[in-house]
């Protein structure tokens, strides 16, 4: 996958939650090799912004641009290049870790047993591959969700509080994954209120204000 010219841009996004005007004219752009960290106090609209980018929440006004074209009308194409890690891990407790990846990440890209195993190994839960997701710890579930993100092989990562439930090693893993991703020319946008890659050269900040 080439990430040339894969610039993501948000132009004057306005969004509401019920009666509250949460996002007011939010504009920013992210280039390949950049990690944009969205910060701000609770309720300021970090999740709202990320969901608007994913198209999971309609913006009142504003436009998203990807590779120099408006996303409107080309959602499925854009979505295919977008990897999303939300608050929810999107796991089925009755399925094993491997099956979870097969049935969910497999919708996007054709997977082989080797790629699944390699990815499970990368996030450090290879030995848990055949356990039902139900029996994984909260941190392991988050790692499994990260594996799904990796398998999506997307150019643009949208991460909502990616380090929730993770221990120090887990946080370091997320940092490594993000750095790897952007160094390969990928883009990442994350909402986080913890420390996350705070000193990395690829970091840019977007501070949302109430």
């Amino acid at each position: 996958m080439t990430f040339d010219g894969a610039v993501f841009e948000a132009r004057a996004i306005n969004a509401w939650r019920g009666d509250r005007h949460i996002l007011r004219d939010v504009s920013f752009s992210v280039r390949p090799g950049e990690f944009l960290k969205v910060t701000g106090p609770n309720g300021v609209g970090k999740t709202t912004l990320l969901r608007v980018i994913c198209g999971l929440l309609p913006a009142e006004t504003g436009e998203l641009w990807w590779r120099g074209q408006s996303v409107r009308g080309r959602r499925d194409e854009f979505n295919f290049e977008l990897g999303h890690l939300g608050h929810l891990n999107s796991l089925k407790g009755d399925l094993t870790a491997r099956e979870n990846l097969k049935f969910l990440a497999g919708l996007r890209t054709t997977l082989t047993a080797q790629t699944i195993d390699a990815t499970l190994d990368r996030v450090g839960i290879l030995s848990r591959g055949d356990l039902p997701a139900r029996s994984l710890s909260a941190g392991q579930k988050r790692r499994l969700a990260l594996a799904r993100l990796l398998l999506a092989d997307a150019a643009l990562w949208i991460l909502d509080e990616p380090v929730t439930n993770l221990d120090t090693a887990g946080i370091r893993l997320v940092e490594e994954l993000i750095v790897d991703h952007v160094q390969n020319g990928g883009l990442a946008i994350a909402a986080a209120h913890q420390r996350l890659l705070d000193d990395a050269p690829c970091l840019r900040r977007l501070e949302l204000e109430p």
Partner: protein
Amino acid sequence: MSWTWFHKLASPPHAYRILGSLAPWFGWASLALILLATWWGLVKAPADYQQGDGFRILYVHAPSAWMSMFTYVVMAVAAGVGLVWRIKLAHAAAAACAPIGASFTFLALATGSIWGKPMWGTWWVWDARLTSELLLLFLYLGYMALRASFDDPQRADRASAVLALVGVINVPIIHYSVNWWSTLHQPASVTKFDKPSIDLAMLIPLFLMIIGFQLYFGWAVSRRLRGEILRRERNANWLKEAA
């Protein structure tokens, strides 16, 4: 082609003002026509040679039955426009239609049932038209129940729009299936009379009443639509003047 006039018209403050000035015209015209049609239908039109004066129920039954279908189609079209072109005003119009349509459907059912008593000798007959009306009432009730179950008006708009579109595709199928069904089953009680053979003198008040009901619908929709527009508008400054 310029669509600016359309956008201007569809902009909430404009629509709000225009509806406000249109409503009284609709209102008074409908009042005049309905009163005229009532007088014509009850007094001037000759009695039916078979049903006597009982047939005069037709003048309220048929227009309300017509309006119940008409309103559903208007509602579905508005919902479709709102869904496809993301026009809030269209969603608001669909929302405004539902209770009006439901009330007309109820009226058609009630007057049909009252008319049925002298015609068939029972209050309820499973004939095709009444059954269709009953199912239409269920569709309206479902639509309104779905709308009411969402807190967020935007989601309510779009969810109920999907339902209205599925419903409007179904209405002809329901209609056809019910007709087919009722031709297979003869009603238990035999109709006492033939269909009223309508002559022109009987038809005029019917048309007057239908037009009167249409205007009444225009009035009621304008009024409700103004409310729905206000509910959907979030911050605009024009609200200060409007409210």
